[in-house]
């Protein structure tokens, strides 16, 4: 057959580079420890359902212990000269680079995302974030947050499973650079890379208690957010949980940043270069199995080029390789958990039930593990659930428009406002569209690009605050005149 795919030989990355222990404890005050009540849970590989390791299941007592450890460490850490704090962060960045192959394989095992992405996207960005913020540590007075910028205290950070190590870097690096200490809770399905990061901190000689890692479920995250010893809450995850957090901190002195869901419109105009746009559409929705809050999950294509774009898109989708995430040729890995697979499946079924047309390329999915073929829906209207709700999976909804004004109207017709894409050769149209789209990040003729120097975050119900860049640093510094928990007094009190 003329159009048959080349048969690729398997090209697996060796997993021998990762030394997994059978069980891991919580990382509190520089040491690994069991949970107070001895509970544990298992982390499985989503591509094989193999149990990778057992990890401690943090409860309220552990949260309390970790927050106290972070408070105790805050006094000395925040009093360190910025240049010294920065040097610790530079050390961490270097060690992350040295161990990037190990960490990439680990992330792929635990998360199910393809090694191509952990190796080429996640890990380089993780190191880059530590490098970037390391350089801020001794330049805080120039960050535009007043002449005497002060850290907030203890940061309670809760991160999701889609980019476990990258989300850790986004949160830990600016927090430490500004002089805060952290208690971080990774997601229950992807706890391992954060525990390996604890080892990176150990190798870097980071003082005890500056970084604490609590593996556990949502209850541990809720206890962390509510803990009175926490001064700053940073959360990335669903809008639903984000709202609950906003309610929890209401009336308190805690500062909050929230990076929540999205339903990004990727807008393709009739003058866009089709092949380039198709690559962007594919990257926008199928990158990381669509487990991306800023994924371009709503394709808005100009009616006059709908057929041409869809034909090219389907052709391109047929070449995507779904399968073993450790294979270097794999484009789309496993869905992160059975629970997430069920949610994606249910929403896709709702799309069909509501009258949209479903299409997926022929592809064989492995028998064990959690898989979902890249899927396209046409004939989608704005009322359909697949056009309104965040699917967080490799499912693209296609809508059409005729005029730029209609594109803006449809793109903004969502409670979310995280990201958007524009594809056109006309510069003035890009600028005009970019200014009208209610979204925190607008990619024009590109999509899903990230950089530590570049602020990222949403409008409306996609959350508040920005991560990355100078803006991301500001989220961990007190405004002039704002009271903070101080470097000494309250610390002693809580410590007793």
């Amino acid at each position: 057959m003329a159009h048959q795919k080349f048969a690729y030989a398997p090209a697996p990355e060796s997993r021998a580079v990762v030394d997994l222990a059978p069980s891991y404890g919580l990382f509190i005050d520089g040491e690994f420890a069991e949970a107070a009540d001895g509970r544990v849970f298992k982390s499985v590989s989503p591509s094989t359902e193999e149990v990778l390791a057992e990890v401690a299941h943090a409860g309220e007592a552990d949260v309390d212990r970790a927050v106290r450890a972070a408070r105790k460490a805050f006094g000395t850490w925040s009093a360190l000269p910025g240049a010294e704090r920065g040097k610790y962060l530079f050390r961490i960045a270097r060690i992350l680079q040295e161990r990037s192959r190990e960490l990439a394989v680990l992330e792929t095992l635990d998360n199910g995302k393809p090694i191509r992405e952990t190796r080429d996207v996640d890990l380089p960005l993780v190191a880059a974030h530590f490098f970037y913020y390391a350089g801020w540590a001794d330049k805080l007075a120039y960050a535009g947050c007043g002449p005497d910028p002060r850290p907030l205290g203890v940061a309670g950070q809760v991160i999701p499973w889609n980019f476990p190590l990258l989300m850790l870097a986004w949160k830990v690096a600016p927090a430490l650079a500004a002089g805060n200490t952290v208690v971080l809770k990774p997601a229950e399905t992807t706890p391992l890379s954060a525990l390996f990061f604890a080892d990176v901190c150990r190798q870097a000689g980071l003082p005890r208690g500056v970084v604490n890692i609590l593996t556990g479920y949502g209850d541990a995250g809720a206890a962390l957010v509510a803990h009175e010893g926490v001064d700053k809450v940073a959360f990335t995850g669903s809008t639903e949980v984000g709202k609950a957090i906003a309610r929890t901190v209401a009336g308190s002195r805690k500062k909050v940043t929230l990076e929540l869901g999205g339903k990004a419109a990727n807008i393709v105009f009739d003058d866009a270069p089709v092949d380039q746009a198709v690559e962007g559409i594919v990257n926008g929705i199928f990158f990381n199995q669509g487990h991306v809050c800023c994924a371009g999950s709503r394709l808005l294509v100009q009616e006059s080029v709908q057929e041409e774009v869809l034909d090219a898109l389907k052709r391109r989708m047929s070449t995507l390789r779904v399968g073993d995430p450790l294979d270097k040729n794999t484009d789309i890995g496993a869905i992160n958990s059975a629970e997430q697979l069920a949610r994606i499946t249910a929403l896709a079924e709702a799309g069909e039930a509501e009258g949209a047309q479903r299409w997926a390329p022929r592809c064989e999915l492995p028998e064990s593990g959690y898989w979902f073929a890249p899927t396209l829906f046409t004939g989608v209207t704005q009322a359909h659930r697949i056009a309104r709700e965040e699917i967080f999976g490799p499912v693209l909804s296609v809508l059409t428009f005729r005029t730029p004004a209609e594109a803006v109207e449809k793109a903004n017709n969502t409670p979310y406002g995280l990201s958007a894409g524009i594809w056109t050769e006309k510069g003035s149209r890009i600028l005009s569209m970019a200014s009208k789209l209610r979204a925190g990040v607008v990619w024009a003729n590109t999509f899903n690009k990230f950089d530590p120097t570049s602020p990222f975050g949403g409008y409306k119900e996609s959350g508040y605050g920005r991560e990355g860049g100078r803006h991301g640093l500001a989220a961990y510094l007190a405004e002039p005149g704002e009271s903070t928990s101080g470097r000494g007094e309250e610390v002693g009190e809580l410590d007793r």
Partner: protein
Amino acid sequence: MTVSERSEGAARLSVFKTYKLYVGGKFPRSESGRVYEVTDSKGGRGGGAWLANAPLASRKDARDAVVAARKAVAGWSGATAYNRGQVLYRVAEMLEGRREQYVREVADAEGLSKAKAAAVVDAAVDRWVWYAGWTDKIAQVVGGANPVAGPYFNLSTPEPTGVVAVLAPQDSSLLGLVSVLAPVIATGNTAVVVAAEHAPLPALSLGEVLATSDVPAGVVNILSGRTAEIAAPLAAHQDVNAIDLTGASPELAAELEAAAADNLKRVRRPSPTEDWTADPGTSRLTAWLETKTVWHPMGV
């Protein structure tokens, strides 16, 4: 016109002013038909001499004000920063022209001597001028080019968040009000303001200044009444993007912040140590701004 002035034996009977709300560029009474008695502060709250019957705004008035504010967002946020600065400066000009009126109103509202009230009014005028000058500078101060590691043109710019509900401070009827309102509109947002509950008259008069200062209708909407009553529907309103809780008590603020979580409104909490005479800084400008980052490939 105060009661005392009238009773000082002047032969002429003075003309009272009917204080009204300022919504959508118009001066309606409360749709509820309700008013409440505003007294001067000499006998303590509620115990002083009668000054006026202010409109007691209802939930419906609050919702009407949000509709007006939403309608005004596109035009005001789309205006050039230079134009917004001109309009804000025009407010300062008009305020200055009515200086005597505000000195009287502030003196009555806050129990200040004429001299102290005059200093407050002057500071309020100067604050408008300060914020007028910020409209075309804030983007350069808080935005910028991001040196990303790749061939991309990448720019972050601040944009207004939309409709901001403002609970004006209770302790400073004009300077405090101006200090919380001006940054909201300087950055291109529109505002629904709840005036100080017991001293709403300077705020209601400010509406008259705004109406004649080229501020487009709906950009600022001013309500008077019970702060808690009006604030509740504003905090819960799905078409309000942000809320400034400065004028709320700690208990009310906590309640409103929880309600605001429902659509993730941007919230500014009250500070117990707010000093209206201090250098305002930029935090009240940035509180109502979103940062938008635009990427474009760079190459030939």
